[in-house]
């Protein structure tokens, strides 16, 4: 912290009066009293963690968000999402917005950052829910959940959880009609208290699903030529078939993995098997294989066209059938 302070005073513009020991002491005191060092350190850490492409915009949002938390009554900087899904307290809405903001911070491929953010979001949503008995307090697998807050809520309310997932999907650019079947699988009853690992699973699935759908949309754009109208059904089916085959291969590894989940001794071997499966799967969806499939499809496949929506739905179905139904 101290060297950071030094760097700042060293980088002060030349117009500033310098050399006055009393003034710099007074400045230091002011900064430490106002907690500026802590504030900036937290901001830089968050920023480095998220690796946003627009760091300035990120900091602006970050400080706006912090300011809206510390000053109750003001709602961010005016760009907070407004989603009115039934009667809801303003506080709950605010918590939902902040939780979503946290979830947006890091991409899910940055596992540790994403897990931290999921945890923060869970705590936020948890603290808004009605007070419950402390008996069904869920265990946090990461061990990083804030204890004091988990005691308050006892679990995120199912309604809030569903709303979070809906928002994640729609923000990810997935149309409601496409995400609806997935959300049905992840659904919890409105009155249920959702434990942390279910929450995390739901959020992660929605994040991956949004990515997947975006890729599928891009894939369709590649397959179809924009001037020639929709892509031919034959090509679409070929692409989807290749995709399914690859997914089946990679899923085999997960089933395999679940069987051996408790035996830690051969975890190395297991990881090897898993890696091999993934390699196999990616080989199955390599440009070469795909090209081959498309070439054969072009000569002898079903006739007719396939529009973007149909392709998206079919691709989504491939994904959704692999998501476990929550009981």
């Amino acid at each position, binding site marked *: 912290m101290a060297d950071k302070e030094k760097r700042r005073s060293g980088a002060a513009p030349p117009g500033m009066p310098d050399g006055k020991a009393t003034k710099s002491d007074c400045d230091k005191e002011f900064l430490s009293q106002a907690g*500026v060092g802590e504030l900036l350190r937290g901001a830089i850490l968050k920023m*480095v963690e998220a690796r946003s492409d627009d760091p300035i915009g990120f900091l602006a949002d970050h400080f706006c968000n912090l300011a809206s938390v510390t000053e109750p009554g003001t709602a961010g900087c005016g760009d907070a999402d407004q989603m009115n899904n039934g009667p809801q307290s303003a506080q709950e809405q605010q918590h939902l917005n902040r939780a979503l903001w946290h979830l947006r911070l890091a991409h899910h491929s940055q596992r540790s950052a994403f897990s931290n953010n999921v945890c923060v979001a869970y705590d936020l949503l948890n603290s808004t829910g009605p007070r419950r008995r402390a008996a069904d307090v869920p265990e946090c697998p990461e061990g990083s959940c804030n204890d004091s807050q988990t005691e308050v809520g006892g679990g995120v309310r199912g309604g809030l959880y569903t709303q979070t997932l809906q928002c994640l999907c729609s923000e990810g650019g997935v149309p409601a009609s496409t995400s609806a079947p997935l959300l049905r699988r992840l659904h919890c009853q409105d009155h249920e208290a959702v434990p942390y690992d279910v929450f995390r699973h739901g959020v992660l699935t929605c994040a991956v699903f949004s990515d997947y759908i975006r890729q599928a949309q891009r894939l369709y754009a590649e397959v179809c030529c924009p001037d020639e109208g929709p892509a031919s059904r034959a090509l679409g089916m070929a692409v989807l078939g290749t995709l399914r085959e690859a997914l089946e291969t990679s899923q085999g590894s997960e089933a395999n993995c679940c069987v051996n989940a408790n035996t830690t001794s051969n975890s190395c071997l297991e990881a090897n098997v898993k890696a091999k499966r993934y390699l196999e799967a990616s080989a199955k969806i390599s440009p070469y294989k795909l090209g081959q499939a498309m070439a054969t499809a072009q000569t002898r496949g079903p006739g007719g066209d396939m529009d973007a929506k149909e392709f998206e739905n079919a691709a989504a179905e491939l994904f959704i059938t692999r998501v476990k139904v929550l009981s």
Partner: protein
Amino acid sequence: MNRFSSAVPDNEYLADSNVLFYLSDAVSQLLEHKEEYTHVGVIRYFAEYFSSVKNSNHVLFREYSYVTATPHNRASFIRVFWRCYRHIGKSGALLSMLEYRSLLQLLCPDFPLKPVQSAARIVLMDDAVDYLMSFSDFLFAFQLQFYYKEFLDSVLEIYQDLLAGKNPNTVIVPTSTEQLPLVAAEESDREQQQDGVEPSTLAQCVEAFCDRFKHSHPPRSCMRGVLEQTNRISYHSFLLSLAKHEAINQAIGALPNKSEFLIDPEMDQELDKLIAQISVSPGSNSSGSAVGGLKEMLQRKASPRRNIHHRRRIEGESDGSTEETDSSEN
């Protein structure tokens, strides 16, 4: 989300983004105006600081060294300049170099003469003080000169070396292909110095220079395109072509394209409102209130944190100085 570049170390990520520069400026501004911000709250102050950086309002009324410190600041300043004085272009008024400088000084009190002179030279091919320029000519020349200052200065050196018969690249990049331009440069030297240099020679030198230049430079393809068009090019005509190049304007990203840059219904409405206010307000002669109105408009565009501090300074300055007296400085 820049998730694929996580291999870049944290300190490089921070250095690339200029974020530390803005953080240190935010802290020194905070210290300079402590009293004003203690009741607003430090977090709210930082939120407003970075929002204004994001919205490009942060350069208004700041010192020249700050305005030129980062590419984002330069682009923001060009944008602010355009937004504040667009109506001049609309009215079709022609102004002299010193008048443009006065306008710039309303936005940045210590704006020096030299960059304005260089921009005017692109338009006028001359150092004449009292020649008049249209707003759009000046704006696009100013944009090029202001945004790529360091690059253009270096290109001028290269150009002068070429004129003098030296090839600057033969010393620094000794490859076999560089022998050719050297011969070409000598030939051009024999012919005539005043008419500029062989475009292909300049193109090669500029390409090689871009490779080792750390700051921002215009897109290479644009420069190549400009240099391919003629068979003889001078430094001045090179700059003039770059200033008019639409792709460079887009690369800087501060201004809309040339056909649209005077259109702004929102600003028109605001101006109409201002004019209505001025004609209603009693006891003010027309010229005085026009300046006041302009100032008011600038204040409204400014980020909130600079207002109080600068209002006094700006008024003090612009009241005393007419546009002609500026030539006494520098």
